[in-house]
C-alpha cells in the first residue's frame, strides 16, 4: 500500500465525491416526489392514473438500473432525445427510485389502521379530508423506515453510473486504476469514500425514524 499514491489521487476523488452527492440528492429528491404522487394515485384508486402508476412501479422495479441507463443513454438519442450523461443518470435514478419510494409510501399508507380511517369517516370526512388529516400524517410517519432504506439503496446505485462515463466516485476509481494499475490503493479510497457518506447518513436516518415515530404515535 503506497500512501503517496492515495494522497495524489485525493483531489480527483473529491470531485467524484461531490458529483456522487449531487446526483444522489437530485435523484432522491425527484424519487420522493414521484413516489408520493404515484402512491396516492394508487391508494385512492384514481381511475386510469392509478392503473398506470401500478404498471410503472412494476416496470421500474423489475428492470435493472443498468439497462434503464443504457436505454436512456443509447436508445433515446435514436428517438431524437439526447441528454447529457449526468441528466441520464438523474432521470434513471428518479425512474427507478420513484417506484421504490412509491412502494415505501404505499406500505405506510396501508399501515394506517382501518379503525383510524373509519373514525375519520364517522366524523363526516370525505376522501380528500381523510387523506389530509388521517392517512398522510400517520402514513408518512409509518413509511419513514422504508424510505430511509431506499435512500441508502439509491446512493449505492449511483455507482452504476460509471458505465455511462459519469465521473462519480466509482467511475473515478476505475479510471485511475486503468491509468496507474494501483487497484489496492484506489479501491481502498473508494470504499472509505462511500462509507463516509453512508455510515453517518444511516445513523442520522435511524435517529430520524425514531423521532418521527415518537412525534406521531408516541412510542
Amino acid at each position, binding site marked *: 500500500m503506497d500512501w503517496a499514491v492515495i494522497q495524489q489521487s485525493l483531489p480527483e476523488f473529491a470531485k467524484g465525491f461531490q458529483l456522487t452527492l449531487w446526483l444522489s440528492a437530485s435523484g432522491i429528491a425527484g424519487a420522493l416526489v414521484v413516489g408520493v404522487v404515484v402512491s396516492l394515485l394508487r391508494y385512492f384508486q384514481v381511475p386510469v392514473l392509478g392503473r398506470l402508476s401500478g404498471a410503472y412501479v412494476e416496470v421500474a422495479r423489475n428492470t435493472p438500473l443498468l439497462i434503464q441507463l443504457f436505454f436512456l443513454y443509447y436508445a433515446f438519442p435514436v428517438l431524437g432525445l439526447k441528454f447529457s450523461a449526468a441528466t441520464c443518470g438523474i432521470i434513471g435514478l428518479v425512474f427507478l427510485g420513484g417506484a421504490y419510494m412509491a412502494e415505501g409510501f404505499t406500505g405506510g399508507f396501508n399501515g394506517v*389502521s382501518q*379503525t*383510524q380511517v*373509519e*373514525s*375519520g*369517516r*364517522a*366524523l*363526516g*370526512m*370525505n376522501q380528500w*379530508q381523510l387523506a389530509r*388529516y*388521517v392517512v398522510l*400524517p*400517520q402514513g408518512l*410517519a409509518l413509511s419513514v423506515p422504508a424510505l430511509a432504506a431506499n435512500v441508502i439503496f439509491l446512493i449505492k446505485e449511483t455507482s452504476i453510473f460509471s458505465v455511462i462515463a459519469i465521473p462519480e466516485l466509482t467511475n473515478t476509481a476505475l479510471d485511475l486504476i486503468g491509468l496507474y494499475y494501483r487497484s489496492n490503493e484506489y479501491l481502498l479510497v473508494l470504499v472509505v469514500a462511500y462509507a463516509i457518506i453512508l455510515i453517518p447518513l444511516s445513523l442520522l436516518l435511524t435517529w430520524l425514524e425514531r423521532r418521527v415515530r415518537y*412525534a*406521531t*404515535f*408516541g*412510542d
Partner: protein
Amino acid sequence: METEILKVTHLNKFYGARQVLFDVNFTLHQGEVLTLLGPSGSGKSTLLRTLNGLEAFQAGTLTFNGQPVVADEAHWQKLRQKIGMVFQSYDLFPNLTVLENITLAPVKIQGRSAATVQAEALALLERVGLSAYAKAYPRELSGGQKQRIAIVRALALHPELMLFDEVTASLDPEMVRGVLEIIKQLSQEAAMTMIIVTHEMNFAAQIADRVLFLADGKIVEDTPGQQFFAQPQTQRAQEFLDSMDF
C-alpha cells in the same frame, strides 16, 4: 318522545351470498335510548354500522328525520355529521392533541369558527372532567379517558343521534363506570337520542328505554327496557340473560 328520528324498514344485509341481517324493522323517537342486545355474532354491531353507512345494505330503506336516506358515500358524508359514532377502540388521532382531536371536524368539515368550537370543546371537556388534558396527546391518557374524549369528539359535531358500539368492551373494569356515567348524563340531561350496543347488562337495564334483542341477524324481541330485563318475552332472550348472569 314524539318525533321520529330514525325509521328502519325491511333492512337486509348480505356479505356475498351470506345473509347477516334479516328484515330488520324499527323506529326510533327523539330522546329515546335504544339498546341492542344479543349474543356475539348476532349482528348488533353490523346493524349499528349500517345506520351511518360504514356498512352497506342490500335491501330496505332508512329514513332519518323524515328524509329517506340516499345510501351513497357523498350523502353519508353529510349525514354522519348528524349521526355521531363512538367505537370500541376509541381511535383518537395519535398525532393531534386532545383539543385538536375534538375541534378538527367541526372546524375543517363543518366550517364553524375555530374560536367558538374551541370554547365549546373546552366546556365539554370540563363536563367530562378532563379539561386539564386539553393540550395532552392521546398517548398520555388512560383508556377510559380516551373513550370520554372520543365521546366529546363526536358530540362536538352537534349530532342528533349517537351510536355507541361496545364503547366499554376494551376498558379495564374501573374505567367502565366513568364512561357509562357520561352516556347516562347525556341521555338524562341532554335528552340525546341514542343506540347502544353493549355487553354491560346492568348499564343497559338502567338506561334502555327499549331493547332490541337480536339473534342470528334477526330481531327476536322489541321490548320496553324495564320489561325486557324483568320478563323477556322469548325463551331465547331469557337464555341470553341467564348466560350473562343477569
